[in-house]
């Protein structure tokens, strides 16, 4: 390579050669670094520290990052180019991906199928033998669209720029094509030939971007889009040559502007569509969706919690990866931290944050109003990692939004929390977050015995759909029973939200027995 320079990444211990002048964003994105605001220099999420080499700060960088950070070598990687050799420390690491291996009941069908959960952050795909339900191969990856905005709104914003939408549509189709190719290669030619359907689920923006549809209506009030229906493609037309010609590629329909087929699939996965008794379905992602009701009527809302549970917008926040404090347990009058990878701690992830606040409440170090009891501004959890007062505030907003959303929906539908027998929790709940701590901080306004961590229900639901006689009509009929309500229209939101920002004063009754497994289907 003419005039190439080397970028060494710490602590990954990886060296990548790139042509001089390559934008760092391009080089680092290929290594899994995310750009939460889409490389606009707004969020500071992509910061790197220059350990060796020269990377002069750009005008305004001092103001964005602060003098001390810039002097310590921190830079916003989205705004720099690699002009000479560099050694960089990355502030973030790879995301954890949630697969699914839950048992479920199915009627065998001939052939094989592919189920994909198209997440904003991660993609997970499984190749399934439809005759016996065996998962033959699994592949996952970070959604490459994240290069243009990690959160949904930034991505939608980018898709509205010139050629933005085409860029994102092409990216996702190409990445899915690669996932499919890898799945087929892993399963072998004999199985590959037998694939006869592929089902995708995801939120409304993922649905629109996969289909190449206009995302502009998703960018502002009233967030309503007409194009919520099933998307149906022919593998050949998409140019996905590994799949047998004529194999349908189906993206299941959305419920509304912010609630997609990932939630529909989730409802199928936990059997919500067959329940007589009232229940609750919660999906804790950045957007936190809540569904309440039973088989005949389901009411759904998205609660916009924000990314605090993923460790974002937290002073020393990070993803659940090496070096993150993932657990904080009170013991005697003190506490213990568990760090992922048994290394020195360098940050705190969502589960650690929720644990820390729960422990702080139990130890009397944090008051129910969120203040540190002794008036301090931070709490050293395990040097050098600290929990700051503003981090607790961030958690109060996220937790308040989810708890308020759930309470408002239950109230409006005459569901008494204490009568609930099943609260299905998809995504991070129970998988990353400890239920005891979530209960302690008042994130889950439900009886503890009703809590059912349910894993990646979107993927499971997509898999279940592979076995349906007609997956589209099954989903369409479910969709007709789900009503989407917007919490912004609720005049009581502010009061309930503010109430729910406060932490419960007394420890919630400790849970007598571990939660039962999600009921088998």
């Amino acid at each position, binding site marked *: 390579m003419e005039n190439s320079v080397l970028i060494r990444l710490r602590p990954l211990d990886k060296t990548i050669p790139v042509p001089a002048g390559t934008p760092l964003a391009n080089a680092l994105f290929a290594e899994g670094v995310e750009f939460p605001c889409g490389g606009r220099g707004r969020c500071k999420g992509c910061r790197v520290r220059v350990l060796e080499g020269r990377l002069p700060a750009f005008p*305004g960088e001092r103001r964005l990052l602060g003098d001390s950070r810039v002097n310590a070598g921190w830079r916003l990687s989205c705004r720099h180019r690699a002009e000479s050799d560099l050694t960089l420390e990355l502030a973030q690491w790879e995301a954890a991906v949630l697969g699914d291996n839950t048992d479920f009941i199915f009627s065998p069908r001939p052939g094989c199928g592919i189920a994909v959960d198209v997440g904003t952050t991660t993609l997970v795909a499984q190749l399934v033998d439809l005759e016996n339900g065996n998962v033959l191969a699994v592949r996952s990856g970070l959604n490459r669209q994240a290069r243009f905005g990690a959160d949904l709104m930034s991505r939608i914003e980018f898709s509205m720029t010139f050629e933005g939408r085409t860029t994102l549509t092409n990216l996702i189709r190409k990445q899915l094509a690669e996932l499919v190719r890898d799945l087929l290669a892993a399963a072998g030619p004999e199985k590959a030939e037998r694939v006869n359907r592929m089902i995708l689920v995801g939120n409304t923006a993922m649905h629109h971007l996969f289909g190449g549809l206009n995302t502009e209506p998703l960018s502002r009030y009233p967030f309503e889009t007409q194009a919520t229906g099933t998307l149906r493609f022919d593998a050949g037309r998409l140019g996905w040559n590994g799949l047998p010609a004529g194999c349908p590629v189906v993206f299941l329909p959305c419920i509304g502007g912010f609630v997609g087929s990932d939630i529909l699939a989730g409802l199928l996965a936990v059997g919500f569509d067959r329940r007589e008794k009232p229940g609750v379905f919660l999906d804790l992602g950045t957007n936190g969706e809540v569904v309440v009701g039973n088989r005949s009527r389901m009411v759904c809302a998205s609660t916009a919690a924000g990314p605090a549970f993923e460790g974002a917008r937290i002073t020393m926040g990070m993803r659940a990866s090496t070096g993150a404090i993932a657990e904080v347990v009170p013991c005697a009058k003190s506490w213990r931290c568990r760090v992922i990878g048994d290394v020195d701690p360098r940050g705190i992830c969502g589960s650690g944050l929720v644990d820390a606040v729960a422990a702080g409440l139990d130890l009397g170090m944090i008051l129910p109003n969120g203040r540190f009891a002794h008036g301090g501004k931070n709490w050293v959890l395990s040097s050098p990692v600290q929990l700051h007062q503003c981090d607790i505030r961030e958690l109060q907003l996220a937790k308040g939004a989810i708890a308020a959303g759930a309470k408002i929906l239950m109230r409006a539908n005459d569901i008494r929390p204490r009568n609930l027998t099943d609260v299905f929790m998809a995504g991070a709940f129970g998988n990353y977050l400890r239920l005891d701590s979530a209960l302690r901080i008042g994130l889950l306004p439900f009886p503890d015995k009703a809590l059912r961590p349910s894993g990646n229900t979107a993927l499971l639901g997509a898999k279940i759909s592979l076995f349906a006689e007609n997956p589209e009509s099954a989903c369409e009929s479910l969709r007709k029973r789900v009503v989407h309500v917007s919490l912004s229209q609720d005049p009581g939101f502010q009061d309930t939200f503010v109430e729910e920002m*406060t932490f419960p004063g007394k420890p919630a009754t400790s849970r007598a027995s571990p939660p039962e497994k999600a009921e088998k289907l």
Partner: protein
Amino acid sequence: MSEWTKLYDAVLNGDADTARSVTDEALAAGTDPQTLVNDYMIPAMDEVGRRFEANDFFVPELLIAARAMKGALGKIRPLLTASGVKPKGRVVLGTVKGDLHDIGKNLVAAMLEGGGFEVIDLGVDVSAEKFIEAIRDESADIVAMSALLTTTMPSMKNTIEALNEAGVRGNVKIMIGGAPITREYAEEIGADSYGDSAATAVGIARKLVAS
């Protein structure tokens, strides 16, 4: 001047009942309403703002303090109007077109009122036309806009452009805020000021009317 510190304490602690009853008592005792506002209520809300800024207070504390302040102000305002007392300035405030997030905006409104401003709250999803109309009808000194979505930030820019076209931009100062807003963005779109919290909004508004 420490006679009615009970009013100061009631507002600071968000005790709406006491705030109202002390106000009644003070007015009955012939205290000048203007004195109650300037010497007790505004200082109390300033202290609320300081504590919010320092992260000692959070949204709930600020809201209950604002409620207590409003309760007392409700009794005082008619007297002030009757005696022709002018507010520190008139602020037209709203969440911009396409956005329905209003909690931050409501806090800003409360702090500004507590700071002695008259606030005309246009609500949420406020179009440029509505802002323009309000500027004309209310002869406002300041326009304050809030946005919580990155996708509705451009509505601020559009509104400022529309104010220019309508020829009313020169009549008002513009301040903007909301979680995704930055100082750079305010400069870029030609707003006069940016505030990162409801507490700083008051100081900014004071500066804007003074200039």
